[in-house]
């Protein structure tokens, strides 16, 4: 097992990028990441692509070869692999590259995530997202992805007394963070009242509880730490990685207000690097809905079960609070381009650990963490990064 470092990053703004194709987005972020790393295409041993839905949104499968070709990597016949686990595709692509490098098979990998969600109508993109749940026995019965999270939220409210005001505070906080992130899809503040008064999507969840379905791309260069010295960038070490699965359908879970795969993936990630939850200075979590951020923080153990929403309203997850959560703006305000989201999370933590996060910099940040999940957390992937 070898140490692995992140030596280069590149990201687009997320949003409605109607003038940009999947391959253009992939190329732009890939080039940005390799120039940030100070490497050339000859240094690349493998390409991993996180993508959830090109088949349903673009009628294009085989996007690993597509991106490799468009980026000029096929002239060297570089191996290219697509990784898919719904919205966890990006985080999981990182993990595949991490394992290949740590295991000694390759030295340098480019991991890119790209997604086009706005080439299709809202109703088609929403249906595509619900394919991350059980399409046959959930989506086909009329259950939207939001409605499954609505039942998770209602169950959390019923058991722990979580309130509307507490959930609204999470979107308010993520927009506040995004107001300091020029690459965010929604780089502006919104009030908690605006969240509470936004239209109902599926009770009790409202429009401003929900992350958008965005276009966007993100890429990183991973390198064996022992080989990283010859490249110009001081690396950020990827010290821990964990992954877990759960039942695809929410209705097959014992507790509706828990997402246990997140906790198990986190435990495995902590074990892989000998760190504990109190060592973490900042975290990017998968807030596809406000309730998901609440439960992720509880599963990882940052707050006791049933307490995360209350602590969020108190400002403990805000920049300057007990632990900064989603300084990028999270899925809600940075945007959510499923295949790219897990990689965008890693990029935010790398920026923070490099001290390049500008106005939203977490002072003295040494260790950061990412949590990315697919479906109703039927796949969860957690990474831990540390300043070298």
């Amino acid at each position, binding site marked *: 097992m070898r140490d692995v470092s992140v030596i280069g990053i590149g990201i687009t703004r997320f949003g409605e990028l109607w003038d940009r194709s999947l391959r253009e987005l992939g190329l732009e972020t890939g080039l940005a990441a390799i120039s940030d790393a100070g490497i050339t295409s000859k240094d690349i041993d493998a390409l991993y692509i996180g993508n959830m839905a090109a088949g349903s949104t673009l009628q294009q499968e085989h996007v690993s070869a597509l991106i490799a070709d468009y980026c000029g990597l096929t002239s060297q016949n570089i191996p290219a692999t697509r990784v898919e686990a719904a919205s966890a595709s990006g985080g999981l692509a990182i993990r595949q590259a991490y394992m290949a490098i740590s295991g000694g098979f390759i030295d340098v990998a480019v991991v890119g995530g790209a997604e086009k969600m706005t080439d299709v109508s809202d109703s088609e993109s929403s249906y595509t997202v619900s394919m991350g749940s059980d399409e*046959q026995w959930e989506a086909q019965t*009329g*259950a939207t992805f939001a*409605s499954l999270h*609505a*039942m998770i939220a*209602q169950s959390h409210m019923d058991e722990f007394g979580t309130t509307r005001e507490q959930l609204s505070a999470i979107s308010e906080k993520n927009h506040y963070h995004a107001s300091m992130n020029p690459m965010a899809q929604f780089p502006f503040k919104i009030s908690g009242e605006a969240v509470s008064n936004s239209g109902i*999507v599926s009770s009790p969840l409202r429009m401003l509880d929900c992350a958008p379905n965005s276009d966007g791309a993100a890429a990183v260069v991973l390198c064996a730490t022992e080989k990283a010295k010859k490249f110009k960038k001081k690396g950020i070490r990827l010290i821990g990685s964990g992954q877990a699965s759960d039942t695809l359908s929410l209705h097959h879970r014992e507790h509706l207000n828990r997402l246990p795969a997140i906790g198990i993936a986190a435990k495995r990630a902590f074990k892989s690097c000998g760190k504990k939850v109190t060592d973490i200075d900042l975290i990017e979590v998968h807030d596809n809905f406000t309730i998901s951020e609440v439960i992720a923080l509880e599963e990882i153990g940052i707050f006791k079960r049933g307490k995360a929403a209350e602590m969020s309203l108190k400002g403990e997850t805000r920049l300057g609070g007990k632990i900064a959560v989603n300084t990028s703006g999270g899925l809600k305000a940075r945007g959510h381009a499923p295949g790219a989201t897990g990689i965008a999370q890693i990029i935010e933590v790398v920026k923070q650990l490099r001290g390049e996060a500008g106005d939203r910099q977490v002072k003295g940040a040494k260790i950061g963490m990412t949590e990315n999940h697919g479906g109703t957390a039927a796949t969860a992937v957690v990474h831990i990064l540390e300043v070298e």
Partner: protein
Amino acid sequence: MSVPRFWRELDSRYNLVGSYCKITKTYHYPKRSFNPDAGRDSIGNMVDYQFNGTGTIISSTVVHQAQSGYEMFGPYCMAIIELEEGPRLTSQVVDCDPITVKPGMKVKSVFRKLGEDSESGILHYGTKFIIDEIQDEEEVDDNLPDVEL
């Protein structure tokens, strides 16, 4: 949805047929040929079982932004329902004001149209649920003492 894909699920969709595991003596929905709790022993020991269709609401939501193909039904109630025999499923609760559906309410299955592929496409039928007229004792007036008028 393709015709073969819909056709092979007809029994589960139309008749609420799932599986009974002879090893663990537990019920499963939808049908499965393998019970994770029993492992390989369950292969060949899973038999079809038609659920009686009564169950209890575990959690519910009123969907305002409808699923693709369900726009004409909105706002509608989606719920996770625990069947009397044990397994849980996700389904719509219909023929009632959707906001009145609460955890603990008794429901029973009905056969309904789920949707259609297009005006000339195949129609999808399946199971939805309605509020069961027979609820728990405390809501039934018979418990009140008789009063002579």
